[in-house]
C-alpha cells in the first residue's frame, strides 16, 4: 500500500450479511452506524481491521462488521486484543465492550492494557446495567439503583470510567452519547489515529432494563445546556445560547459559570488542552456530573507516549542486530557443549 492510496469506502462496505439482533431502540444500533462511518473515513484497507469483543449485548458487534472479528469470552477481550496487536502491529484493533465486561469481570485486563499503552481502541458501551443477563446492577450503576440483584438499592460506589482510565495512566479518553452520530464518528476517527490505548466511553441507552438512564443530559431539549462538547484549543463554552462556560476557581476546582454575569467574559473561560500530559484538569472534566456541571463529551485527554507493541518490536530488532544467535541451529550449539565420537 502506498501512502497516496485512497480507499473509497462507505459505511455500507463495513456491514456484514448478518441480521442485527439488538432490541429495537437499543443505543447499540447508533454506535454500529457511527463506527461504520468512521471506518469508511479512515483510509485504512478493510482487511486490516480486527474487532474483538467479550460477552454482553454490545459484544455481538463483531458479527455485524464485515471485518476480521473475534467474539470471545466474558471480560477477556482486552487481553485477546492485546495479543492481536502485539502479534501484528499493522492491524487496526478495536475492542467492543460494556461496563460489566470491561470494568467488572475484565477490570484487571482493562487497567493493564491502558498501563501498557497498547494501541487498541476500546469502545466501552456504558448503560450502567447488565442487559444480557436481564437487569442487574453494574460497576457504573449509581449508588442506590434498584435492580433485580439490588432490590433495596445498591450500596456500592460506582466507577467513573474516565477516572479509572486516568488512574491507570491512560493517555486517551473520550466520551460520547450513542445518539450523537456526528460527534461519535469524529471521536472514533480521532481514537483510531491516536497511537496508544484509546478508551471511548459511550453513554448508551438500554431500552429494556435501564431506559432513559442518560436522558437527564441526552434529551434533545436539554442536552446543549447539560453537556459540554470539548474541542482541543477551544474555550469550554456550552449552552443553547453558548453563554455558559467553565472557569477554574481558586486554582483547584472547576466552576460552571454564565458568561456576562459577575464580570465573567469569554476571556475567563478555560481553553481545553487535551494534549496536556498533566491530567489535572482533564481529570476534573472527566468527573463532571450534572446538575453541578455539564457532562463533558468529546476527547478529554489525548497524550502521546510510546506504545507497547512498538517497544516490543524495537527491542526485538535491537537484540537481533547485536546477537550472534540468528537461528535455532546457532542457539542449539551455543554455550557449553561437548562432542562424543
Amino acid at each position, binding site marked *: 500500500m502506498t501512502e497516496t492510496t485512497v480507499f473509497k469506502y462507505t459505511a455500507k462496505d463495513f456491514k456484514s450479511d448478518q441480521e442485527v439482533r439488538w432490541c429495537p431502540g437499543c443505543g447499540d444500533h447508533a454506535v454500529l452506524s457511527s463506527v461504520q462511518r468512521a471506518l469508511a473515513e479512515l483510509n485504512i484497507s478493510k482487511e486490516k481491521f480486527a474487532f474483538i469483543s467479550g460477552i454482553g449485548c454490545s459484544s455481538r458487534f463483531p458479527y455485524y462488521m464485515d471485518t476480521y472479528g473475534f467474539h470471545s469470552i466474558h471480560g477477556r477481550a482486552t487481553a485477546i486484543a492485546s495479543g492481536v496487536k502485539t502479534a501484528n502491529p499493522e492491524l487496526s484493533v478495536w475492542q467492543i465492550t460494556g461496563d460489566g465486561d470491561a470494568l467488572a469481570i475484565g477490570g*484487571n485486563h482493562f487497567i493493564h492494557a491502558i498501563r501498557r499503552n497498547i494501541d487498541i481502541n476500546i469502545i466501552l458501551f456504558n448503560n450502567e446495567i447488565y442487559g444480557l443477563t436481564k437487569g442487574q446492577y453494574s460497576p457504573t450503576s449509581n449508588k442506590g439503583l434498584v435492580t433485580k440483584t439490588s432490590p433495596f438499592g445498591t450500596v456500592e460506589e460506582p466507577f467513573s470510567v474516565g477516572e479509572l482510565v486516568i488512574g491507570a495512566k491512560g493517555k486517551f479518553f473520550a466520551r460520547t452519547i450513542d445518539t450523537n452520530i456526528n460527534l461519535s464518528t469524529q471521536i472514533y476517527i480521532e481514537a483510531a489515529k491516536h497511537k496508544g490505548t484509546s478508551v471511548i466511553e459511550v453513554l448508551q441507552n438500554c431500552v429494556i432494563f435501564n431506559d432513559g438512564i442518560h436522558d437527564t443530559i441526552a434529551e434533545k431539549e436539554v442536552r446543549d445546556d447539560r453537556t459540554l462538547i470539548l474541542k482541543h484549543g477551544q474555550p469550554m463554552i456550552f449552552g443553547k445560547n453558548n453563554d455558559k462556560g467553565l472557569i477554574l476557581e481558586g486554582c483547584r476546582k472547576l466552576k460552571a459559570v454564565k458568561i456576562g454575569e459577575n464580570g465573567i467574559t469569554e476571556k475567563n473561560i478555560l481553553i481545553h488542552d487535551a494534549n496536556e500530559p498533566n491530567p489535572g484538569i482533564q481529570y476534573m472534566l472527566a468527573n463532571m456530573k450534572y446538575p453541578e456541571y455539564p457532562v463533558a463529551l468529546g476527547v478529554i485527554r489525548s497524550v502521546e507516549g510510546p506504545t507497547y507493541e512498538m517497544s516490543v518490536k524495537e527491542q526485538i530488532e535491537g537484540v*537481533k542486530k547485536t546477537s550472534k544467535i540468528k537461528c535455532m541451529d546457532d542457539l542449539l550449539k551455543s554455550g557449553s557443549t561437548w562432542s562424543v565420537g
Partner: protein
Amino acid sequence: MGKKSEVIEREEVVIRFSGDSGDGMQLTGTLFSDTAALFGNDLSTFPDYPAEIRAPQGTVGGVSGFQVHLGHSKINTPGDFSDVLVAMNPAAIKANAKWIKPGGTIIYDEGNFTEKNIEKAGYLKDPISEENLENYNVIAAPISSMVKEALKDFGLDPKSVLRTKNMFALGMVYWLFDRQLKYTEDYFEKKFKNKPGMAEANKVALRAGYYYAETIEALTPTYKILPAEIAKGTYRNINGNSATAWGFMAAAEKAGLDLFIGSYPITPATGILEELAARKDLGVKSFQAEDEIAGICTSLGASFAGHLAVTSTSGPGLALKSEAIGLAVMAELPIVIINVQRGGPSTGLPTKTEQTDLMQALYGRNGECPVVVIASSTPSDCFHFAFEAARIALEHMTPVLLLSDSYLANGTEPWRIPEMKELPKIKPPFADKSEIPFLPYKRDDDKLARKWAIPGIPGLEHRIGGLEKTVKGTVSYVPENHEEMVKLRAEKVARVVHEIPSLEVYGAKTGDLLVVGWGGSYGYLITAVRELQEEGHKVSLVNFNYINPMPWNVKAVFSKFKKIVVCELNMGQFADYLRIKHQEFKYEQLNKIQGLPFTVNDIKEKCIKLLEGK
C-alpha cells in the same frame, strides 16, 4: 593431581549437595553436573528446594538439595540413595539421613554444627550418632573457618566470605571424583566479569577445598567413574523447562511463524517464560500478562493473528485458563498450553513434583471440550514433545495441552543436540484467496482441520467466537447443528491418532507383568524394569507420551501380559482413564503422592509382589 590411597571404579554414583536455601546448593550441584557432563558421564539431576526463597535458616523446612546421578552407563534417574552427602548444616543431615547408602560418605561443615543449629534441626547433641551414622565415612570439615582463613587477605565482608563455603565443599567433591576445576573457574570469570575480586575469591575457596581434601586423605575411598558410552554427536546439558522452550522455538522456525508466549510467572513453569523472554534474537514475543487468564488470552489473540502461540503454567494456573481453553476449542485456533505439574490441590506443594493434573488436562472444562493431551517423559525429550505439541496444534487447528512436571522441569540430563534439518517441516492449513468466499469452519476431509485465515489478507474477513456456529461462522442455536459440531470437534482430535507413533514396549512383547507409566515417571520405571529384567523377571514397560488420543495399539500391547500395573504420582488418574478407554483389562496400581518422584525400589518392590502373586 594428588595421590589417592584407594580408588574405586564405579559404574555409577549419586551425590547430594544439601544445605540452607541460601547456601547456594543449586549452583553447586549445577556446576558439578556440568563438569561431569563435559567429562563424558551420562547423568541425571534433581533439585529439591523449598518454596520459600529464604526459609527460616537452619531448619529442616529450609533445606535445599541438589542430587546428581552420574555413571559410566545409561542413567535414567537422579538415583534413590546417595553415595556422597554434602551437608552444610545439621538440618541437611536430618532431611537426608535416610537417603544415604549404608556406609556412604558424609561431608559436613563442622563450623556450622553449633549447639543452636543442632537444636534447630531437632537433635540433642550429635546428629551423626543420633542418626546412627557413626559407621559411615564421616568427614567433619571445618569449611567455615577454612574459607575465612583462605580469604582473610581479600578484604571481603564476613558475609561474602562465608558465601564461598559451597565452593570449598565443591572443591572437596571434585577431588573425591578426580575432576578438573577448569569449567568452574571459567564460570567464575564469566559470572564475576565486573568483580574480579569475587571471581578470585571463589577460585581460592574452590582450590582450598580441593587441596584440603587431598591433604587429609580422609576421603577414602575416592571414586572413578569412566565416561559413558553414548551415541556420537554434540551434547549439552539441558533441563526440562529450557528444552520445552527450545522445542517451541524450533517449531516456530519449522513452521515459518513467529513465536508468541503470553504467560504469568508460576513455579515451577516460570523457567519457560524466562527462557523465551531472553530469545528476542530469535524474534520471540514474550508477554508477561497481568494474570493467568490474560496469559492464555493474549496468546489466543496472537494465534488469531497468525503466530505460533503458547502459554505456560502450573496446576492452579491451568484451572484459571480453563475457560479460555474452551474458547480455543470452540474457535478452533492453534495454541499450546504447557502445564508443569506440581503438588496440589490449591497451592499445594509448589516446588514439588506430582502427576495429579491429568484429569484436569483431559476433562477440566465446561461442555464437550476435547483437546490433544501429550506428556513429556525426560528433561531432554521435553524438546521433542514441545515440538510435537506445536506441530499438532498448528496442523490440526486445535489446542494441545502439554504436560510436564516439576521433576522434569528442573532435572537435567545430557542431550544430543539435533540439527534443525533433522526435524520435519510444519505446514499449518493457511487459507488463501482461493477460499473466497471464506467459510471459517469448512474442514478438510482428512484431518477435519479448518483453514487458518490470518487478519490482513483481503477477502478473507470472517468472524469466529465462543458461541456455537455453523460452517459459515454464523451463530446457530439449531439443535442438530450443535450436536454435529460437537462431534466434529471431537472427531478432529481423535484423528490425531494417525499422526502419532504406536506404543513402544521396552522389553519382551509378552510377559508376566507390564509396567504402565506416563510422562515424567519414565526414568524410574525404565531403571526398575531393566533391573528386574536383569534379575530374570518377565517384566516390560510401556510409557505413554500421547494421552489423548492414545496410540492405536494399546489393546494389542496390553493383551500380551498376564498382569498390568499402572504406576503414577497420583491416586490413580491414568489407571482410571485406562479403565474408561480399555475396560477389558484389570489394572493394578502403584501410587505415590509425597511430592517426590518414585524410587527405583518402590517400583521393584511392587512388581515383585505382583509377580509373586501377592
